[in-house]
């Protein structure tokens, strides 16, 4: 064994927190022979193990790639600060979990971009791996570095560091990419010619190679569009999308962590996409159209997952599981099959209606948890603006059902700082929560219950996201967000209502990196040098360091987050295509200001967002099967 591995095993791992974060010995982890494959790749999750291992996308790609004889895919997560300190002080490189190899030894690395505030961890992981941060400084001997996930739809702040991005659903495209990389190496005695490789990859639909594009700026230094500078490269890159979820790969032997992770359960993906059309919601655009998986297939998958994992809970996951057209028969069948084995079922997302409460009641046959609903805004006017199809009557109906069925706690999610918001809307949040509480008191009193109801109001700040109807909106200034948070606090008077809110400084940074262009790469680098990492973790997020980073580079973050844009303003992500047309998004924005709602294309008319027409896909509902 190499000496550093021995030091790691004997001296470092015994003294860091949760050493299991760094060992790939879990059940169903795949350890392949490096010499027996043509391509060695690494899935890099820029957050801690417990977060990364709760991510279904990791399990899908890990299973799919490792089932191919010619490739291997190992894992690496952001090391917690205690391990980072040990690695740095001893000069030990960041290593993969499965084979304990330095990350620089792989042929390619793929980062998943789940949220903007994980970006500094990407830089930190590359640095810990001894890999030059800047793509242009990485020669042919370094691994090629790719990234995918929702933030890849505006990856511009990361283009200095990442060689190429993949847009859309990874299982649809990854094997094409791997085949090109493997063949490229096979022709060159296992080596790569990076420039040539990237040219080959740029021909794959869904692959975006930023080095082949030049960002243009006007005389005032404002972003003015993107120009292709490499011949033969498409001016726009469209996402890849799975057409039929029943045919798509699904991992039936997922890794079973030893360590308790955030989502410690079997995940059944019942559908992909959501067309409820909330105007702030990015996932609702990126994962269009809605594609459901057949009930019978899901039941089969549940049986196999149970046999292969031993988990005691099944989660029916999706963006909105109560919208699954076969949710009742599926739930009934899964409950009947698994109840005798003491395997529970959980629903991660509930629509605000009594139908959803009934579903929740069904699944509580085995285990009882709290319930969460998301009215998002405090008044009907604002809920219509954001196209959130929830009324106060529905919310109170839900409260009645929840408390009648024996729950005593309810959590409500809201967003603050939404476009057109006034103080009336903030007061509306407090009033709605008070009404729900009053309903709870009434119901529990009628039932003769001794318990008092408890409401938690959890408020995040609106972040305008690319590819949404609100992508042109300005975020409220930091000071205004903080003022609104305080105002709302003053309006919540009930002791039985707990009020908590997200850090507004974090939401501000999130907006900047969600909407920013290439110049932000310099800020990321400066922030990382100042010690920023794990910015999504409140104990590590340091706003002062970020301010300093912006000062050093000479970029004013307020000009990115707090300025409204015109329809004609070139956007840094205009060349990246989610399938949903910009005109449709603008029309949705106009309708927001007219307080007009748009129906769900699953149940109402097609709203012509463009995804089905342009990407040759269709809404796929299983009802009536």
């Amino acid at each position, binding site marked *: 064994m190499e000496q550093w591995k021995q030091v790691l095993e*004997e001296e470092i791992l015994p003294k860091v927190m949760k050493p*299991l974060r760094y060992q790939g*010995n879990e*059940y169903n982890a795949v350890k392949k022979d490096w010499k027996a494959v043509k391509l060695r790749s690494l899935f890099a999750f820029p957050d801690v193990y417990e977060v990364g291992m709760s991510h279904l996308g990791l399990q899908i790609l890990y299973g799919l790639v490792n089932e191919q004889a010619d490739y291997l895919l190992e894992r690496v997560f952001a090391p917690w600060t205690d391990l980072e300190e040990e690695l740095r002080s001893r000069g030990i490189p960041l290593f993969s979990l499965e084979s304990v190899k330095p990350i620089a030894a792989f042929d390619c690395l793929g980062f998943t971009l789940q949220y903007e505030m994980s970006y500094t961890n990407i830089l930190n992981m590359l640095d810990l791996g001894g890999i030059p941060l800047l793509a242009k400084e990485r020669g042919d001997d370094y691994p090629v570095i790719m990234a995918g996930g929702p933030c890849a739809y505006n990856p511009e702040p990361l283009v200095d560091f990442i060689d190429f991005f993949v847009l859309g659903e990874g299982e649809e495209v990854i094997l094409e990419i791997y085949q090109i990389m493997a063949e490229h190496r096979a022709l060159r005695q296992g080596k790569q010619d990076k420039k040539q490789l990237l040219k080959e990859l740029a021909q794959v639909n869904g692959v975006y190679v930023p080095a082949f594009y030049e960002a243009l700026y006007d005389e005032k230094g404002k972003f003015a569009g993107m120009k292709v500078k490499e011949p033969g490269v498409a001016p726009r890159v469209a996402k890849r999308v799975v057409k039929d979820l029943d045919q798509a790969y699904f991992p039936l032997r997922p890794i079973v962590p*030893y*360590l308790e992770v955030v989502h410690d359960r079997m995940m059944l993906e019942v559908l992909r996409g959501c067309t409820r059309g909330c105007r702030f919601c990015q996932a609702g655009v990126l994962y269009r159209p809605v594609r459901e998986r057949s009930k019978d297939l899901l039941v089969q998958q549940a049986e196999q997952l149970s*046999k292969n994992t*031993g988990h*005691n809970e099944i989660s029916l996951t999706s963006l909105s599981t109560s919208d699954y057209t076969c949710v009742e028969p599926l739930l009934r069948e899964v409950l009947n099959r698994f109840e005798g*084995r003491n395997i529970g079922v959980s629903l991660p997302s509930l629509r605000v209606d009594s139908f959803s409460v009934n579903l929740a009641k069904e699944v509580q046959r085995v285990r009882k948890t709290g319930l969460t609903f998301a009215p998002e805004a405090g008044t009907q006017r604002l809920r219509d603006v954001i196209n959130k199809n929830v009324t106060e009557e529905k919310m109170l109906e839900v409260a009645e059902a929840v408390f009648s069925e024996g729950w005593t706690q309810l959590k409500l999610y809201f967003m603050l700082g939404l476009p057109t918001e006034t103080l009336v809307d903030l007061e509306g949040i407090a009033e709605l929560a008070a009404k729900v509480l009053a309903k709870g008191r009434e119901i529990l009193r009628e039932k003769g219950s001794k318990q008092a109801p408890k409401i938690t109001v959890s408020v995040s700040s609106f972040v305008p996201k690319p590819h949404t109807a609100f992508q042109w909106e300005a975020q409220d200034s930091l000071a205004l967000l903080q003022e609104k948070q305080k105002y709302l606090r003053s309006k919540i008077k009930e002791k039985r209502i707990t009020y908590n809110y997200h850090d507004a400084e974090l939401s501000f940074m999130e907006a900047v990196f969600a909407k920013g262009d290439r110049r932000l790469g310099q800020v990321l680098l400066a922030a990382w040098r100042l010690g920023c990492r794990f910015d999504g973790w409140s104990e590590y997020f340091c706003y002062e360091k970020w301010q300093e980073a912006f000062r050093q580079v000479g970029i004013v973050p307020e000009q990115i987050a707090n300025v409204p844009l015109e329809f004609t303003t070139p956007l840094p992500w205009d060349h990246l295509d989610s399938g949903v047309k910009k005109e449709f998004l603008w029309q949705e924005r106009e309708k927001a200001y007219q307080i007009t709602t748009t129906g769900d294309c699953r149940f109402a008319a097609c709203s012509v967002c463009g995804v089905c027409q342009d990407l040759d896909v269709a809404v796929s509902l299983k009802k009536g099967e």
Partner: protein
Amino acid sequence: MLLCLQYSKEEEARFLSHLDLMMAMERAFRRAGLPLAFSEGFNPHPRIAYASALAVGVTSEGEYLDLQLREELPPEVVLERVSKVLPRGLRVKAVVPVTKRKQSLMAVINLARYRVEVPIVQDYDQEIEKELLLQEVIDQEVIDRVIAQAIAFPVYLVQRQGKKGIREVNIRPGIRELTGQIRGRKLILEMAVQTGSSGNVKPEEVVKMVRARSPWQLGENLRIHRLGLYIYADTQVWLPLERS
């Protein structure tokens, strides 16, 4: 039916906490499709009772648990099915039905054997160069003497954090056997100590006792390996499987 399983926690699983291990075992039993018996109540859990908890970083080749099943299954079938689905680092070595024993494993097990590797950071006499073989003979004499002196005293007090603050405990009566050997740059201690509800001696505490008298400077990174858990009864040492 009640089964007693003997299992090992090996290198690849050494960083599992007791809680991690319990979860890993439950999942393995579920994968094996065993007809697990569950506790009553709102949050039923499988009826698995462990003999003793192993700390993070500690390996063992002789751990035990009692497993309650709803239906009769031949022990060898259980062994075979579970063996196929255990994660790396966990291994079931034997399964026997519990017929005679009325008490829990935890109540009857009272002796544990450990092997502890203690790194030697610095030699006590570096100036004299000796022939390797001769050195080993001398080392053995020295370590034998150190241990003999340490255990000659009827009292060795260690401090333990209790619910009501720190208290002092005499561990010497709980140390039943102790031997040492020098292997390269390591001192290997083997010990048999009292464990369980009647009193518990931790291997780290025994190392502390030796360390205090050692002419070598001993390092802090211990490798603790449990050789087994036993029942000392009727003036004999029994394997738990022999009294099930």
